[in-house]
């Protein structure tokens, strides 16, 4: 009852036969926070991601609501580029959830419309 949690959670020694209460440790990790910008001569203008993807509210945005993969960021960026028309310069600030907090994934380095 006590040995499992002490070894597993205290010392990181995990074995199948020792119970340790690692609960919800990774739940929600991988969730990305995404902010798109349009680069203009006057600076970067933040874009309303869901509105440009054709949604009126986050509750009705379906699968577009949540992003957990880089490929999805690129796909959504491409759809936004199509809405804005050429020549659009769309960039993204993306951070991804990890157990320790947030990790930077993108920092507006690339024009995602190319």
């Amino acid at each position, binding site marked *: 009852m006590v040995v499992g*949690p002490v070894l597993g959670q205290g010392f990181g020694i995990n074995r199948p036969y020792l119970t340790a209460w690692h609960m919800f440790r990774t739940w929600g*990790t991988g969730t990305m926070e995404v902010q798109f910008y349009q680069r203009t001569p006057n600076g970067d203008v933040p874009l309303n991601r869901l509105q440009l993807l054709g949604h009126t509210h986050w509750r009705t945005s379906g699968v577009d609501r949540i992003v957990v993969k880089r490929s999805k960021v690129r796909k959504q960026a491409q759809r936004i580029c199509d809405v804005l028309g050429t020549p659009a310069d769309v960039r993204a600030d993306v951070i991804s*959830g990890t157990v320790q907090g947030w990790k930077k994934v993108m920092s507006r380095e690339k024009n995602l419309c190319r």
Partner: protein
Amino acid sequence: MPIAQWLREHVFLFEGSTRSVALLRVLAVCVAWSRLGATLVPDGEMGAMAWATSMVFWASTSLMFVGLFSQPASLAVGLTTWVVYANHGDFGTADLHAHHVLAQALLCCLLSLTPCGRSFSVDRWLQGSRALPERGELWGLRLLQMQLVVLYAGAVWEKSYAGWLSGDRMLQVLMNIYLGSDPTGWLTQVVAVSIAWGTVFAEGGLALAVLFAPSFRSRLGAYLFGCTFHGLVYFLTPVSTFTATMAVWLLVLLPTDDVHRITERLLRPTKGQAPSTKSRQLPFLLGAAVLLLLPIYGRLVPTVPDGSGFMTLGEDVCEVRWPDGPAVAGTRRDVHKKVCGRPDLPSNPAIRCVVEGSWTDTKLTKLCRRLPKTAKRRESAR
């Protein structure tokens, strides 16, 4: 008081009413059925080990629920649940190798160390006038309390790091369940930090309450707080099984004699109340009429049941056979997944599906037509 004497009085020789553990016994089965029932219903794809586990699970949970051979039944339920946890591959989902299933197994195993069949049970009923008083040695209850403390302490330890206490992890959870991937404002972040710290204090407080709460009132307050806390988690997140298990387990917070007193008051028959002279014919006849007319009315109105549910059982089951190859059978959706878009499978299979109750020959092109999307449901209970 020396420790040895304290242990002797309050742990090894601790006695009390058995109604607490009896209620735990019944409620633990309800949680087990809600989580594992669908998984352990036997089907054609189960192996021998899974079949055996399923049979033992259903027999032992039934016995445990009604309180027949209560303690061995509790142990059997605990062991079969542990088998499901350890051999989750046999039951088709890795989700079963999780702490919520382990917690259920532990609860039932520890219950088997208590006289949980001495109250609210068939065991007691069969003993008749020879039944022992509803009191017994409850050192097993002390183990349940200790495990609960360890569990909550483990949860607090697990959350005691910067990623959680900064609110970042809770924000990730909120974004995942509700808010989506757009940047959040300062208010959401304040809420996330508050919930993160709140859960740490709640779980730590409950662990301390089990150990140190001095009076019935304080324990009752902690119990109600704990149930509210777990209820909110159940309602707001996809965490259901573990929450329900904890809400049941929290009964160990309450002093056993006070539980006895409360249940006694609830079960005590009312005195001096004359039988009602009001006729109940009209409500009964109205209810009977509604039930009898439902099958007729149901055919006219799609939202009202018409009793034809079983007529469509087995509908849309398909079977695909090749002359020298394997056979595949199951619901149309399952067969679609296994057969369609598979160039490696031999061509020209013989296909038949159940349509309006009869086997009907079907072509591969019709079988592999795009299936309608099923309604999205919340994640399965955990």
